[in-house]
Every structure is written in C-alpha cells, then in structure tokens.
C-alpha cells in the first residue's frame, strides 16, 4: 500500500497517470539496452558474414554453391527484413539518443581532458556516431554493389558472385573505400562489443577482464578478415 501511495505521489509530481514501469521502456536506460541488444545482434550477423565470405578462398565452385544455398532458403526474405529492422532500430534509436545527449550539455568545456585509467574512453569510443554514420553510407554502397549488383548466372544454379566480387574489387578505388570502411567498422566494434554487453547489464570483475580484450580482438579479426578478402580479390582479378 505504501508503494501505491509512493507511486501515486510520483505520478502526481510528473502530472501523468500511466504505469511508471511500462514507461521505463522509453527511458535512457532502456534506450541503452535496446542499442546494446541490436548492436550485438549485428555483430553476430557480421561474424556469420565474414566466415561465409572467407569461403571465397576455396574457389568459385564452393563459394557460389554456398551463396546459392543461402539464396535458395525460403526463410531468406524474413531474415532480410529482420536484419533491416535491427539496423533501423540501432541507427534511429542511437541518433535520437545522441541528440538528447548533446542537449544534456548545452555549454561545453573550454578545456576537457580524458581522466585516464580506469576509463575506457578512446578515440573510437568518442567517435561512435561518426563511425556509425560512415557505416550507414558504406552499407548503401555495399548492398547496391552486391545484393543488387550484376546478375551473372552460374551454370550449377544461382549467381556467379565469385566473378562479381573479383570484378568489383578490380578497381583500386573500390578496394581503398572498402579497406577504410573496414577500419571504421573495426573502430566501431573496438568500443561497441564490450559496451554492448555492459549495456545488457553484464559486469562482474571476471567478465570485465574477459570481454574488454575479447571485444577488441573480435573487432580487429572481423575488420582484418574483410580487408584481406578485398585485397586478395583485387590481386586475383588483376592477375
């Protein structure tokens, strides 16, 4: 009963009557949770994506058969729509959050320095919005080039994505754009992976010792693997 009185008093203070607990879903903490969940889902997708792409080293037969198996799956449209939704939630909620956060400090410091250890602040962590917006632009170019790229038929069925990839990366400009974008994605994940888990509420001393270095290793591994693939495709295509 006291809790009831307590909540009534609080809703009177704020001039609302809706359930404070349900309204929590719109709070700064829930926003953080949502950005964390969607971010980690995208990391999971990226890991699947990079492992799939590494199959290109096994030759056109294997790579195109893998792509055909994926494209032939009836669940693909559902997965694609789901992925698009996850992207949209992550991007839109982050932009809204960024704007609100900027408003929280209207007058900026004349001089501001990093506080040092144990702070995790780094160049990547302070430029998440920039790296994120770069990745949105990259995604548009990337999806246009491959998902909606040239449809070379492959005799055994499906598209000849092996050929498309080698042709796309023939231009050194494309390779450079991809390499820079992969450095940007590495930077985004450098802070993003550990931060995502922190946003989910996972933080014990043992977990912290594991996730901080592990997140950075996964970030470098994903970015590095994509860069190697792009350079390899360029060299193959040029040969």
């Amino acid at each position, binding site marked *: 009963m006291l809790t009831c009185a307590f909540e009534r008093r609080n809703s009177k203070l704020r001039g609302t009557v809706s359930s404070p607990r349900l*309204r929590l*879903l719109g709070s*700064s903490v829930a926003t953080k949770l949502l950005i964390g969940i969607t971010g980690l889902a995208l990391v999971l997708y990226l890991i699947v994506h990079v492992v799939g792409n590494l199959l290109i080293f096994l030759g056109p037969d294997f790579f195109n058969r893998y792509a055909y198996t994926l494209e032939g799956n009836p669940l693909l449209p559902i997965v694609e729509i789901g992925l698009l939704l996850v992207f949209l939630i992550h991007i839109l909620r982050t932009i809204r959050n960024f704007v609100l*956060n900027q408003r929280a400090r209207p*007058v900026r410091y004349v001089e501001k320095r990093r506080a040092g250890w144990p702070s995790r602040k780094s160049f990547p962590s302070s430029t998440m919005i920039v790296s994120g917006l770069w990745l949105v632009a990259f995604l548009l170019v990337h999806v246009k080039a491959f998902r909606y790229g040239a449809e070379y038929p492959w005799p055994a069925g499906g598209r000849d994505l092996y050929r498309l990839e080698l042709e796309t990366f023939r231009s050194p400009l494309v390779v450079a754009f991809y390499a820079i974008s992969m450095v940007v994605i590495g930077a985004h994940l450098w802070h993003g992976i550990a931060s995502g888990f922190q946003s989910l*509420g996972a933080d014990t001393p043992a977990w912290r010792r594991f996730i901080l270095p592990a997140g950075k290793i996964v970030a470098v591994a994903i970015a590095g693997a994509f860069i190697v693939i792009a350079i390899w495709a360029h060299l193959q295509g040029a040969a």
Partner: protein
Amino acid sequence: MRLKLRIWRQAGPTAPGRLEDYAADDISPDMSFLEMLDVVNEGLVRQGKDAIAFDSDCREGICGMCSLVVNGVPHGPDRGTTVCQLHMRRYKDGDTITIEPWRARAFPVVKDLIVDRSAFDRIIAAGGYVSVNAGGAPDGNAIPISKAIYEQAMDSAACIGCGACVAACKNASAHLFMGAKISQLARLPQGQVERASRVAAMVHQADAEGFGSCSNEGECEAVCPKEIPISNIARITRELVKAVWRGGE
C-alpha cells in the same frame, strides 16, 4: 610558487560567462587547491573586486561540496580524491591552471564556479530511500548479511553526491550517481520492498532533469572521488529489466 590561473567568471545563471586570467603569487606548495583560491580571493577583496565564488564545506574529502574542473578533469589530476584534497605541490612554479564549473544542463551555474546540484536531491527524493515501516530497530545480529554483500552495499553507499560523474561524462549522464544508490539498496534486505518502484522513479526523474544517457566509457569511474565502479550502472539495467518483467500494481 607563482601560478597563472584561468578561471570561469559568470555573474549569474543567465549572464554570459568567460575565462579570466588571474595571477596567484606567494602560493605555498603545502596549501590545498581551495586554500590557494582563498589566497587569490583575499587579494581580490583587498582590491575591492568581486571574489571568485566556489563551493566548499568540510575540506577533508567527505562532504561532496567542492566541484571544480581543473585543467579539464573534474576534481583535478589525482585519482580517488576531491579537489579539496588536491595540493599545490602537484604543480610546478609558473604552471597555468584552468578552472571551470561542472557543466550540464541539469546543473545550472549559480555564479562563477558554483552550480546548482539540487537535481541530484530530486533523484534521491524520487526513490533513493527506504520508507517501509519495519517496526522498531531490530537486534543487531537478527538480520544476518554476509560480508561480501554488505561490503558491496557499502562500496556503493560511499557516493558523496558531488556530481563529478556528470561533469566528466560526455553525455552529462547521472547513471553512476543513480546506480550507486540503486545498487546499495538493492543489496540490502531493507531495500527489497520498494526495489522495482525505486528504479522506475529514479530513472524517470534523472531523464526528466535533463541528464544524458550512458555510453559505457567509464570517465565517471575514473574521476569519482570514492572510486565507485561502473558495475553499479550495469546493475541499473538488471534492476530495470526485473522491474518491467514483474510489472506493477
């Protein structure tokens, strides 16, 4: 020691502010940072000028009143201390020191280096307390709490509410302050009854005050004079999920 100071002067909440230069001569390395400012102020008063307004109370690092951003870091360069415990021996003769107030929409400047931190009081008033009637004081050993638990609760309870976490955060977020109180009470039996309504009320109040969200950078933990870790912020999320999951009346 002779120092060059650049200090934020602002006549009132709506007046425009700016950094002004002051010379601090005859400063002893044994003085605290606030004593150094006292000396500068005595000089200003002798000249018939307006003294620099700054907050302080206990001057022994426990009350949470002092609130200066020194050379871009809240509470200055030493870890785990308030600015009143910073001493001038930390500086060299001839150094230039920039002093600014906490900067956040929710902490409006009152004058010069003094900000209004009553937003913190309103967050606590929203739910950072225990108000259940538990009868008379129980026997000291009647409610056993393990050492691990009470140590954790006490570590969170160490918060002195100075606001350095907000000042250091790029988003001016109050999540560390809020998380410390939520964690403290969530660990103890007295805090269980109002556990869900507490997190709801405090999170809403912090958002309504205009504090930002948390980017998990941990600048707050690095400047906290009581070294409260950001695991207290992670606990807000867990408490919030539990509160929403269990629903309310």
